[in-house]
């Protein structure tokens, strides 16, 4: 088993997710399988092969610096569970 339950908890915290004990168990198993498979891939000799982040040979796709209409505000914050005065609201937190 490549992954421990502690690591699953850590990743869940980073992703802001909460899991039940059963889910944690299941994900530990599933993530381990994925990592094991990566381990298998790692055995391949990739000497001299450039890491690939994009498989299509395209670069420099640009847009011109022109303003286009934005969404109406009602639309853009429609899905927020809490809103008011044009803002999205979240439970109070402070930086200090």
């Amino acid at each position, binding site marked *: 088993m490549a992954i421990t339950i502690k690591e699953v908890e850590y990743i869940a915290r980073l992703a802001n997710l909460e899991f039940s004990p059963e889910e944690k168990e299941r994900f530990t198993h599933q993530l381990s399988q994925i990592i094991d498979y990566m381990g298998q891939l790692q055995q391949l000799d990739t000497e001299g092969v450039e890491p690939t982040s994009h498989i299509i040979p395209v*670069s420099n796709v*640009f847009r011109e610096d022109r303003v286009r209409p934005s969404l109406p*505000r009602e639309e853009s914050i429609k899905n927020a569970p809490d809103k008011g005065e044009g803002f999205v609201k979240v439970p109070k937190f402070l*930086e200090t």
Partner: protein
Amino acid sequence: MDYEAVIGLEIHAQLLTASKLFCGCSTRFGDPPNHNTCPICLGMPGVLPVLNRKAVEFALRMAVALHCRTNPFCRFARKNYFYPDLPKGYQISQYELPLAEGGYIDIEVDQTKKRIGITRVHLEEDAGKLLHEGLTESDSKSYIDFNRCGIPLIEIVSEPEIRTSEEAYEYLTQLKTILQYLEICSGNMEEGSLRCDANISIRPAGSSEFMTKTELKNMNTFRGVQRALDYEIKRQAEVVEKGGAIERETRLWDASQQVTIPMRGKEEEHDYRYFPEPDLVPLVTDESWVEEVAHTLPELPTAKRDRFIREYEIPKYDAEILTQSSPLADYYEQCVGYCHNSKAASNWIMVEILRKLKEDNIDIEQCPLSPRALAELISLIDKGTISGKIAKEVFEDMYQSQRSASEIVQEKGLVQITDQEEIRRVVSQVVESNPKQLEQYRRGQTRVFGFFMGQVMKATQGKANPQLVNKILKEILDSS
């Protein structure tokens, strides 16, 4: 023990593009909240960001100005973290292969030149804005405005080569001036279009070790950066002196208390799990593009300052002030172009114009007096039409009324009296009506010369040519 500080600065500069980095939303400042957002900058599923070419050009300008080597092949990366101001749950930034690396800025503190290395310059998007106060439910809620989300930023990271708070201040000021000369950032720290974080540690003077550092945030003015660093150097030295250990932490500058305090509440893990942004193709900045940018780069502050010293033969101090902003430097050059008196133009601008602008809290661009109008005034002095003293009065009038110098001089009858006979007449009159002072002068009390001088100037409302008055007064007094 003597300590020295090891400081590195991380600067974020908002680029002056019209639209955001990856979408067409406006970057306008001060719009109503959540007015400039779209599915792309809100991070809705299935949308595709497309890179703003102008933002790349602006970033390249800075990279070239800072003598960086640009990476011909670079890419964007996702920086993953959860925070309410980041709707996507990641920020599109650059990690490996940033736009540019390895540059420098030359600064000068106490007449000593120093080169500060630039580690990297990269492009990234801004996050939204959080409001914790002033709204209906501010006691229990934080409010989010996503207008700022996706506005292009360049991050400029310095090498940890800054040793004092003065050097940091100088570095920051230079960087701001360059950004403004390049017309790619407003450079306004109070408005947040320029932000500065600092990494700082201390070590025994002369040591080459790196000790535990703290990260300083929330410094909203240039002086604030300097004061926060001063405070932190002192604080760390005190901890070490007492045998304590510096904790690796983020501290916030509290400008009202003038202290740094540990940041609480946001103890999120700094595990950003960067990976290449799959939605954006690589950015290739080939040599011809970089060359094109280099060719169109304006003259930069230091080069301009040196040219002013050389070409206009003005002191370094003058040249430094006049090149603080590109519009001010232009104003000066235009003025000299009309009046051909570089030293006088420098004096008038540094003393009178800058004083007025400060009083009115405006920039040189809003100055009611054109360089040509000021030049005319200087020429009137140079031709002897008015005295320097009268010129001050004319200047005030010009600044208020925006009328030309010659118009004011004519109308108010301020033309300098250079007619020797007329001056002689006034001088004789003054000498005759002050027998007591004349007696004193005869007895060798030459100090009263100044008194006579003042009386003559008063009698002519300051219009008499002072050199002529001086000469004639001496003649008359000595022969009386």
